[in-house]
């Protein structure tokens, strides 16, 4: 997908981070994906995706406050960077161009 190498799962993670806006950290992202997309996400898979995305510069993160429920550990909140937004738009545009290019007859299954 062009110069932005984003996998399907990574795209979902980024979009979810954007959806959650102010409250995007490990657990919420995981639960949001599970609720919206009806699929289970392991902590491990999500963690690696987040780390990779941050390394690519699509996400940035900052520590929040520690809470008792987290055993005194701080949350790490994620935000989509402008670069990340650009990448997401690029992916969407590519998709749309492809959709538009499909001749209507291709999806007309009644005739065959």
């Amino acid at each position, binding site marked *: 997908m062009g110069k932005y190498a984003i996998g399907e799962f990574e795209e979902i993670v980024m979009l979810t981070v954007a959806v959650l806006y102010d409250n995007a950290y*490990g*657990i919420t992202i995981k639960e949001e994906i599970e609720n919206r997309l009806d699929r289970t996400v392991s*902590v491990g898979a999500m963690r690696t995706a987040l*780390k990779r995305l941050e390394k690519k510069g699509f996400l940035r993160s900052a520590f929040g406050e520690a809470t008792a429920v987290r055993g005194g550990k701080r949350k790490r909140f994620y935000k989509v960077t402008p670069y990340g937004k650009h990448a997401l738009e690029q992916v969407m545009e590519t998709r749309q161009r492809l959709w538009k290019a499909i001749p209507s007859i291709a999806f007309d299954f009644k005739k065959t």
Partner: protein
Amino acid sequence: MTTPSPIVPPQLPLRFLRWFCDPDLLEDVEGDLNELYQRRMSVNPTKARRLYYRDVMLLFRPGIIRNVTFSFTNPSDMLQHHLLTALRHALRYKGYTLLNLLGLIVGITASILLLLWIRDEVSMDQFHTKSDRIYQVWRNMYQSSGEVITTQAIPQPLAFVLDNEYPEIEAVTVLSWSMPLLFRHEEEFSYESGRFASPEFFRIFSFPILLGNPETVLQNPQGVLISESLALKYFGTHWRTEVLDQTFQIDDTQTFAVTGVFQDPGIHSSLQFDWLLPADYFIQQNEWMESWHNGGFNIYFTLRQDADIAAVQSKVTHEINEHTNFAADERLYLQKFAENYLYSTFENGIPTEGRLQYVKILSMVALFILLIACVNYMNLATARAGKRSKEIGLRKTLGAAKRSLSLQFFTESFLLAFLSVIAALLAAKLALPFFNHITGKSLTLDLFHPHVWMGMAGITILTGFLAGSYPALLIPSFPVVNALKGTIKHSEASQLFRNGLVIFQFALSMLLIIGTLVISQQIYYILHKHLGLDKENLIYVDLSGELSRQADSYKTQLQQIPEVKQVTFTSGNPLDYHRSTGSADWQGKDPNESVEINVLNVDTDFFETMGVELLQGRAFSEFMTTDTSHYIINEVTADLIGFDDPIGQDFSIWGNQGKIIGMVRNFHMSSLYEPFEPLVLRYDPRSTSVAFIRTQHNVQAALQGVEKITKKMNPAYPFQYNFLDQTYENTYRNEIALGTLVKIFAAVSMFIACLGLLGLSSYAADQRSKEISVRKVHGAHVLQLMMMLCRKYALLLGIAFVIAAPTAYYCTQQWLDNFVFRIHPDPALFLLAGVMAFLIGMLTISFKSYQAANVNPVQKLRNE
């Protein structure tokens, strides 16, 4: 920090997570997991735990796992520093360093020598390029008694059958036993040992040929191949240009031309020969070889690459039986040639360990000694850790991590190991000639060979790691405050462990000492057992050339030498005699029974000269002309034929009917690994080939007399003689070498263990010096103090003995079981070994204890 949550997640996976997780990620990952766990706990606690485990396992993946680079701030500087302190420390405590180094050097030297020996043993016969496909045929003769006699003498026709009827077999060769033949080239002559071989020999074995065409060299029926050293001997250094087509007269009968020269088989070949002649020539001369009923040459073959040896084995098993109409039960067994050497002993027709046992024993010894040396180091290093507690405490206060401290101790142990290995290499190099002398090998140690370097690196790492592991684990875990105060109390566990190590060391040493005693007793037994004949002061000479033609005259002349007591001519050396027949017959013999009976041809002087005791009947007499068809048997044969009184019974061999006129006491005709064998003596002076000469008074004079007469009568042949007792001793060379080796290495292990004990006891005495002084001031006697210091070690040595004795009993029984004729070691022997080790140990300890107890108490108490 907020207060920790009341609900704590499972610790084990958490610790695992903390260990592997990238520190950058750890905080929020752990937080996430914790939060998840809290939520899940409110739903289903067991499931929450399970999921926690699962999540942690799933997190163990690249991207989450921390980078595995060592994050020393400056590894090379640290290492330099560690080396420096190690060196300083070593130089500061010279005595202690010396003890450690000495132990390690001696231990490693011993291990290097043993490793060389083992490598040499294991590489025997492995140099043939097809060695994984070369097989030898063995013949198992099942006796009616249930015994199985195994031989490599195979009926000659089998070679043709294997060659023609077995598609699985690539090539077959026949090879004779090693025999000395008289080689004569112009003026020079001497006996040379070699073998007859068929042309395929060089297709199977990879003995390098230096001159001549390997395809054709053995095909020329008038050709002989000689070894490089033989070529050098007869044709000088320029043999390469001169040797081809030169002729040898062999055994004074036929002339052979040299068709090629092969490289000497070398020390890694179990097949030894200085010449090869075409097998066909020998077979033509000896027609009996062509029968299925007679054993002949050895047979070797190569299997095709894709063939299955099991199939060939099942097909070949009954080849002899089928071709001889089951005249006797003889089955064939195939064994990989390369395994012959280590699995050389056959038991019930199946190869057993044989030499492999020696390889195993000595491997264990090598390992034991190395272990004992490493244990020394461990013990001394941990015991003396107290001395260094301030250093360790200070390092810790300044922020040294445990890992860095461990590394320091490993650096020390590796440094010492490295130095010891270098010193040991040199020591081994120096000791090698002596070691070769004992083992009868020609081992070499090339200091610059890559294998040696690899081996040495291996030993360094092994020793460094073994020796350093315990101190490196234990010492860094001392509590900082105690360490700084210098009040390190060794924990119960660490003291127990150290005591355990001492016990372990001494148990191993005692094991070796007991082994030594048992082995040397058995060897003494072998060499001094009465064999049924008197083997001392007996010279024997082969009856070759004129000697055989003028046997009577030779005998008379020999008897006239004043130093010669008696002379007898026989058909072979009775102590190593394997010429048997299955044709013996007697009244009442079960026709289906097959028995191999040895047949020895003798003259009338046999019994007196050899000291063989006649139990019943009478000896052969030259005045009774019929005696040539009569027989004298031994006790085993008497049991076999089963008459209450065998004297006067009919007996026949090869169809020659006669009577049994006497019975002799059993004497050993093969090694003490084997039981007595049945024997029949025939009076047939014409068919003898060896002269046995019993000397008296001056052996040298007798020998000179024999030489003079022999050379005069038989000038065309070189004079060769042997002493019977020496020949006998030579057959037990391996056992004697094993005995010497184990003896030396038992001493070495004892020495190293004592070094360790010396170190430990001096340290203990040192630590308790104040206590000793106070006791002394209060009137304690030197002896009492010594007792106090020695008591603990006495107990340890006692325990070591309790462990070592039964183990040693078991091990030595295993070895002794190989022998049919063996000693049954006395329990006192074990006690003796224990007491010896105990005394040596106690002497070592009391040496230091005495010094400690004898010190003037003022000196120790003054500086409080």
